[in-house]
């Protein structure tokens, strides 16, 4: 019979593990075509948005940066260029498949400065980093997918150095009905049909419901202030289809 060992200093949360597991499996399934689909579906614009996300962190040479829900590593590679060989980037994701792709991309890259990136398989809700460690944190298309957004923000706050910034890029849950209409139309008539061609219709249909369940820009700002950030601002980009939360500890 299994012995239960008491863990006095840890907190077990009654999160819907099955939901988190389903999402983990989803990202595992889309991993092989994730990069190609990002390029196709955004017509390459995601690269611009991600550069903006990194700029907003204020990351500079020599910094220690963290990319949460790093996936195949887009933001981690951009952070790597910002912090240079004297800096350090940690990319964390809960998908083994995505990390494997990130690691391979790192190995194949001709640029030697990508050697400053380490990959960690981990949970954005239980970060394996000590308090106040990072000078900058990014999260791209991750916050919408975690089952406990407040907990994720709390963990980001905990591991960030005072005065440093977190920059969270994601779909924007707009308060403008017209923008919502455009967003839904694009998902139904562009994203899902293209994803269907890759055999991933159901995985990308998940996008619409996840945006509906997400927080608006104002709600994200409020959440960041609630967990302790001193300043929080949500910027709408790409005509309001995307948004980027910037919060300072």
């Amino acid at each position, binding site marked *: 019979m299994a012995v239960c060992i008491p*863990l006095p200093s840890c907190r077990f949360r009654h999160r819907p593990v099955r939901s988190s597991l389903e999402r983990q499996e989803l990202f595992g399934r889309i991993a092989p075509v994730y990069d190609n689909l990002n390029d196709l579906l955004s017509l390459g614009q995601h690269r611009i948005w991600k550069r903006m996300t990194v700029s907003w962190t204020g990351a500079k040479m020599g910094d220690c940066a963290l990319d949460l829900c790093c996936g195949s590593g887009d933001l981690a590679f951009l952070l790597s260029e910002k912090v240079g060989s004297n800096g350090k980037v940690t990319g964390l994701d809960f998908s083994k498949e995505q*990390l494997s792709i990130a690691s391979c991309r790192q190995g194949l890259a001709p640029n030697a400065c990508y050697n400053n990136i380490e990959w*960690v398989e981990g949970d954005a809700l239980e970060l394996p*980093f000590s308090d106040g460690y990072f000078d900058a944190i990014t999260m791209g298309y991750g916050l919408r997918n975690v089952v406990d957004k407040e907990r994720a923000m709390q963990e980001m706050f905990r591991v960030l150095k005072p005065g440093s910034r977190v920059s969270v890029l994601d779909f924007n849950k707009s308060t403008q009905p017209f923008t919502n209409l455009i967003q839904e139309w694009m998902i139904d008539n562009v994203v899902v049909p293209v994803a269907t061609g890759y055999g991933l219709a159901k995985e990308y249909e998940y996008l619409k419901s996840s945006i509906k369940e997400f927080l608006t820009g104002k709600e994200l700002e409020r959440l960041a202030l609630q967990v302790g950030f001193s300043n929080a601002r949500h910027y709408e980009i790409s005509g309001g289809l995307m948004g980027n939360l910037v919060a300072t500890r």
Partner: protein
Amino acid sequence: MVRASLMLLKDVGRGFCNSLSQMLVCPLSKKPLRYSEETNSLISDAIGVSFPIKDGIPCLVPMDGKIIEADDMPKTDDAADLSSKNNQ
């Protein structure tokens, strides 16, 4: 791609103790981790759990942990308890 991955694994194995283990903590107790070269894992002495390192990547999702005293048991009791609580 395989050769690049193998090279990366060797490099990570050599440098692992020096850099990554110093910054990582147990995801549950938030206490320091200890690198075990013989088992190639990260040990949380605070809670008696070891976390594997696979292909040079530390696996620190809480459910990846394994209670050290029960080497033959599948996965951690914490994971089993958490799963059973959520299935109720």
